[in-house]
């Protein structure tokens, strides 16, 4: 079977492999179950973080992201990744370099110092969009891979910012009321629920989490409150940095503002892993700051 699988160079980023390794383990296994092979992208670095790094020098951001792209070009493969922040760096720099000769020449001048050249031969995809794309996987095939439907659970979707926005540069269409991730959730048997201002940012991006934690958490708190109002058993996202902000953020919110939420936070790959029959141990769900147990009780 694996001979006919779609193959991608797997760009890991930082937070998934180094804070929530269950997301990495889940991505490799769940994607294989629907016909995608994720192959190691040896020597990749931080994407680098678009907010923290791009804010101080965009030109270094271009060059560093280009180095990661060249590693995939050398494998003659497209990149698949699992983080919106990485998507902004890797997809967007690829896009800019493909369409801006001056920028590309500048980057290549620097890459020459390390015997590399950016050619623009690789494309970049978020695993979530590959799951949704019927030419690669599609909702139907995804639903067929489910061994343990998440029936009876209500799941809120957090799209995050840097996958779909800015819309005019991307290819996802409407960024005000998208529904494709809800389809991905429904395919697993869970009930996707709508809540107020669902497209709002998690609060962490742009270096704000590091710069002014209380400010970032205040935004997070608003989102969690909106989810709570409609009654959710969990929130799912496709960005480990959003996950960190929602998950650890709930402890920090309790500490700073005295508000307790207890909404389990699951990356879509973790959710898919559960639906495909992976155990909580195989996903290292115990590493999550907010106890996932109440959600597991609903579905197991």
């Amino acid at each position, binding site marked *: 079977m694996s001979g006919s699988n779609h193959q991608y160079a797997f760009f*890991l980023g*930082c937070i998934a*492999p*180094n804070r929530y*390794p*269950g997301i*990495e*383990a889940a991505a490799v296994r769940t994607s294989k179950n629907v016909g995608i092979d994720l192959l*190691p*992208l*040896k*020597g*990749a*670095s*931080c994407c*680098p*973080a*678009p*907010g*923290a*790094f*791009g*804010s*101080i*020098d*965009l*030109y*270094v951001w271009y*060059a*560093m992201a280009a*180095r990661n792209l060249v590693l995939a070009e050398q494998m003659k493969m497209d990149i698949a990744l699992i983080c919106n922040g990485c998507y902004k760096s890797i997809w967007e720099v690829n896009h800019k370099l493909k369409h801006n000769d001056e920028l590309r020449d500048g980057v290549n001048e*620097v*890459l020459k*110092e*390390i015997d*590399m050249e950016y050619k623009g031969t690789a494309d970049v995809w978020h695993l979530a969009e590959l799951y949704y794309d019927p030419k690669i996987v599609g909702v139907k095939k995804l639903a067929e891979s489910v061994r343990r439907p998440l029936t009876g659970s209500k799941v809120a979707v957090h799209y995050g*910012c*840097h996958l779909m*926005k*800015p*819309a*005019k540069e991307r290819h996802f269409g409407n*960024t*005000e009321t998208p529904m494709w991730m809800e389809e991905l959730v429904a395919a697993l048997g869970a009930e996707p629920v709508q809540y107020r201002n669902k497209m709002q940012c998690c*609060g962490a*991006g*742009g*270096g*704000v989490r*590091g*710069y*002014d934690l209380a*400010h*970032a958490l*205040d*935004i997070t708190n*608003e989102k969690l409150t909106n989810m709570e109002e409609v009654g959710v058993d969990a929130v799912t996202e496709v960005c480990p940095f959003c996950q960190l902000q929602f998950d650890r953020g709930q402890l920090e919110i309790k500490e700073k503002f005295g508000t307790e939420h207890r909404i389990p936070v699951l990356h879509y790959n973790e959710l898919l892993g559960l639906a495909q029959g992976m155990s909580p141990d*195989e996903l*290292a769900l115990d*590493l999550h700051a907010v106890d996932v147990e109440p959600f597991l009780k609903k579905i197991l």
Partner: protein
Amino acid sequence: MAVKKDYKDQKLAEKLRDRKYYVSESNPEFTKDVEKLGQTAAHMCYQCGTCTGSCPSAPRSSYRIRLFMRKAVLGLEEEALTDPDLWLCTTCYSCTDRCPRDLAPTDAIMAMRNLAFRRDIVPRNFLQTVQLIYKTGHGVPNNDANRAARKRLGLEEEPETTHKYPEYLPGIRKILDHYRLKEHADRILAEGEKP
């Protein structure tokens, strides 16, 4: 009786009150720099305020993206770059998606942050990320608790990145050194500056 529209919070009101600006305060080059770095035609902004209305940071701070756009267009470099609110943008791009002039206020902010950094105006956390990437290749590096968890999951303790292949680090450091980024970050951190 006419009621003056104002904020209850005195500090906020003071900061956001309309005021006069003079040509002598303006640096036209600043506008050009913002437009070039941000790749957006900021001078097309007609100050409708859709950006501020879309901004998750606006309701909880004195950060006003519309005012930053105004300052960019008027060349008010000093005002824009020394305002600590510059760093409260989460780069969510809601303003960019809703801008009726098809501008990218988010990228104008990124450009202004880059220009601030050139003048050594930058919060410490941004510099610490540079140091971590220089040292490990990662902005968020691995740690022992995580290595144990990875092992438990059947993953290798070090991911297939610069962590497992540190031989790639010299190349990364060469790129950062080309732009003298690490040197710049180290110097500012050593001087203990913070906006």
